[in-house]
C-alpha cells in the first residue's frame, strides 16, 4: 500500500494508470457502497464509455452480493451486500476486470437510438420564462425576447435562434447518466462541433414545464416532471416519464430513457407537439426507439480525430462570444 493510500482513509485501493487506461481509484461510500473513479476530474466521453464497458463486464461477472450499479460521467457507484460480498473481494474483482475488459477503442457499447420530437422556443417554456421575469428577476440577462434561446445563441457566437436549432439537431446526444430525479437524463453532444455551453439561471427558476429541454454548462437535460430548474431552456418534447404508464413505452416502468441511449432531436411545431403528446397519453403513439444498436468507440474516435480543426474553430468562436455576454 502506498503512502498516500494509507493517509487517505476514504480510499480502499488505487490501480495506477497503464497505457491508455487511466488511474482507477476505489473509494468507500459507507459499508454498502463503493465509488469507483477513472482518471482526473475532466469531462471526457471516452472515460464515460469506459465506465459502460466496465459496467457491462461487472454485470456479466454475476458476482454474488452485487446489488446494483450507477454509471456516471467518470465514476460508477456500486451497491453491494458487504456481509455476503466482502469489500476486498469486490475491489479485487473490479481490479481484475480492468485487465480483462477490452481497451476503450475496442468497445462496442450497447446503445439505443431514440428519436424525440421537439418544439423550439415553444409556448409552454415561454410561459414559465415570462413568469420568471414577472415574479423572480426582471433584468435577467439570459432572457432575450421572452426566451432563453437567443441568449444561448449569443453566448456561443451563433447568429440567431435558427442557428441554435441547427446545432441542437445536427448531433446525437449521448445520455451519460440518469439521476437527481427519476428518469432525468444528462446528455452530451457526440459531435463536439456542435457542443454549445451556457451558464445556469441565477437565481433558479421556480417553474419549468414537464418535457422542457434545457442546457446547463455542456449538459442537456429533459425535465421529467414540472419542477424548479436552473438550465437555459430551448424547447419542449414529449413525456419521458409517465407515472400512469399510459403508453407501451412505459410498460415496465415509468422511465423512458436508459443510460447510454443516443437521442436525436426532430423539429416539430407547437401544434404538432401537442398532437403527438395527446397520442402518447392515449397510447397510440409509438416512441421511435431502435434497440440492439451499439456505439463503436473506435470509429467514433476516428471521427473525432477527423473533425479536430472544426472543433477548435468553434471553441475559438465561443471564447470570443463569451467576452461580450453578461452572466446571469
Amino acid at each position: 500500500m502506498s503512502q498516500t493510500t494509507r493517509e487517505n482513509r476514504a480510499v480502499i485501493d488505487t490501480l495506477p494508470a497503464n497505457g491508455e487506461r487511466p488511474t482507477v481509484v476505489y473509494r468507500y461510500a459507507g459499508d454498502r457502497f463503493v465509488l469507483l473513479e477513472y482518471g482526473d476530474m475532466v469531462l471526457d466521453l471516452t472515460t464515460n464509455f469506459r465506465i459502460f464497458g466496465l459496467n457491462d463486464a461487472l454485470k456479466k461477472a454475476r458476482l454474488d452480493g452485487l446489488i446494483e450499479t450507477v454509471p456516471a460521467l467518470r465514476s460508477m457507484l456500486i451497491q453491494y451486500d458487504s456481509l455476503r460480498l466482502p469489500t476486498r473481494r469486490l475491489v479485487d474483482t473490479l481490479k481484475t476486470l480492468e485487465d480483462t475488459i477490452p481497451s476503450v477503442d475496442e468497445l462496442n457499447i450497447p446503445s439505443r437510438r431514440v428519436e424525440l420530437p421537439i418544439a423550439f422556443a415553444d409556448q409552454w417554456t415561454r410561459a414559465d420564462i415570462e413568469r420568471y421575469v414577472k415574479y423572480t428577476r426582471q433584468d435577467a440577462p439570459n432572457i432575450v425576447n421572452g426566451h432563453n434561446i437567443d441568449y444561448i445563441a449569443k453566448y456561443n457566437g451563433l447568429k440567431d435562434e435558427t442557428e441554435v436549432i441547427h446545432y441542437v439537431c445536427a448531433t446525437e446526444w449521448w445520455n451519460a447518466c440518469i439521476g437527481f430525479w427519476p428518469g432525468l437524463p444528462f446528455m452530451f453532444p457526440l459531435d463536439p462541433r456542435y457542443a454549445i455551453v451556457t451558464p445556469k439561471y441565477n437565481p433558479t427558476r421556480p417553474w419549468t414545464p414537464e418535457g422542457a429541454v434545457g442546457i446547463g454548462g455542456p449538459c442537456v437535460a429533459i425535465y421529467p416532471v414540472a419542477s424548479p430548474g436552473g438550465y437555459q431552456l430551448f424547447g419542449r418534447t414529449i413525456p419521458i416519464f409517465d407515472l400512469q404508464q399510459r403508453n407501451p413505452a412505459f410498460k415496465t416502468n415509468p422511465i423512458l430513457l436508459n443510460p447510454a441511449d443516443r437521442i436525436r432531436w426532430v423539429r416539430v411545431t407547437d401544434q404538432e407537439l401537442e398532437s403527438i403528446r395527446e397520442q402518447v397519453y392515449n397510447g397510440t403513439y409509438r416512441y421511435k426507439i431502435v434497440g440492439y444498436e451499439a456505439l463503436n468507440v473506435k470509429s467514433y474516435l476516428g471521427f473525432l480525430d477527423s473533425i479536430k480543426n472544426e472543433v477548435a474553430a468553434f471553441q475559438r468562436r465561443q471564447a470570443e462570444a463569451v467576452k461580450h455576454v453578461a452572466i446571469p
Partner: protein
Amino acid sequence: MLEVLEGGIQTTVQDYPGRVGYLDLGTYPAGPMDHFAFRVANLLVGNPPGAAALEVTAGGLKARFHDRRTLAVTGADMQTTLNGQPLALWESVAVKPDDHLEMKTVKGAGFRAYVAVSGAFEVPEYMGSRATFTVGGFGGFQGRGLKKGDQVPLRRDGAPERLVGRRLRMDLRPRYGTQWEIEAMRGPQADPDYMTPADMEFFFSHAWKVDRNSNRMGVRLESHKWQWARTGGGVAGGHPSNILDNGYAVWTVNVSGDQPIILVADGPSLGGFICNATLVYASTWKVGQLMPGRDTIKFKEVTIDEALTLARSLDAAVSERSIERG
C-alpha cells in the same frame, strides 16, 4: 381495512428495503427512515420484516380498525392509545372491529413511530415495491401521505390473534435521546484531497444541530466554514464542494457549499457535490428518530470491520430470538 380518521403530519405506507435496483434510473429506494423499529413492528405481528407498514412522522394519526388483527406500534412515544387506553410500544396486541388507534404529537425523544398490522397493508407494488416515494409521488397508498377518509386495505390474515402478547426483549429496545452518536465512515470524498484533515476532525467531533428544514429527502445540518483542500471545483464549478456529477450512496453526507445534508430515503440519486462521510447500515435507523430543530448528532468514525460487526448484531436483533412472550 384501516380507516384513517386523521392522517397526522406525515403518515406513509413503506416497505423494506424499498425500491432497490433503480438507482441508475434516478430513483432512490424510499422505505422506512428507521429500518430497525419498522422491521421489529412487523416481526411482532408475524409479518415478514420488510412487509408494508405505516411510518408515522411526528404523530397525529387517528385510525379505526374494521377487522380482527394483531397490531404493534414501535419507535417514538406518541402517547399512543387504543380505545383511549395507553398502548405499550414494542408489543403486539389484539384489535377488533371499531377499535380506535390514536397517536398524539411526539413530545419526548424520537420522531417516528411504526404501525404494523398482521397480514400487512395491501397497496399495489410499483416498480417492485410498496414504499411511498414522496418526491416522485408514487408507490404506497396513491403515492402520498394518508389523509382523513382513506381506507387502506389489508391483506388476508389467517390467524389474527395467534401472535398477541409478543414483546421485543428489553435489552434490545433502543433508548432514544436528543444528543445522538451516529456511526459513519470517511468518504467517498474526504481528506486530504477534498477537505483538510482539520475539516474532517471538526466533522467527527462537532455536535451538529439538525435543521428544521429536514424531511424524507434530506436531513440538513448547520452550515460551517470549511477550509477545503481545493480552491475551486475545476471543470465542475467554481466552489470547492463541486465535483463532476456522480451517484450518491443512500445515507451519505452531502456537502453542498457550506451545508452538510444527510441524503435519506427519498433523496436525489446523483449530483455534483462532494460527500465527505457515509453512514453505515447499522446506524442509519437513528436518523429516522432525529427531531428537526432540536436534536444534535456527533458522527463517530468506524472502520469497515467495525461497521460489519455492528451490522451483524443489528440483523441478529431483528429475529425471532429477540421476541419474548408474556
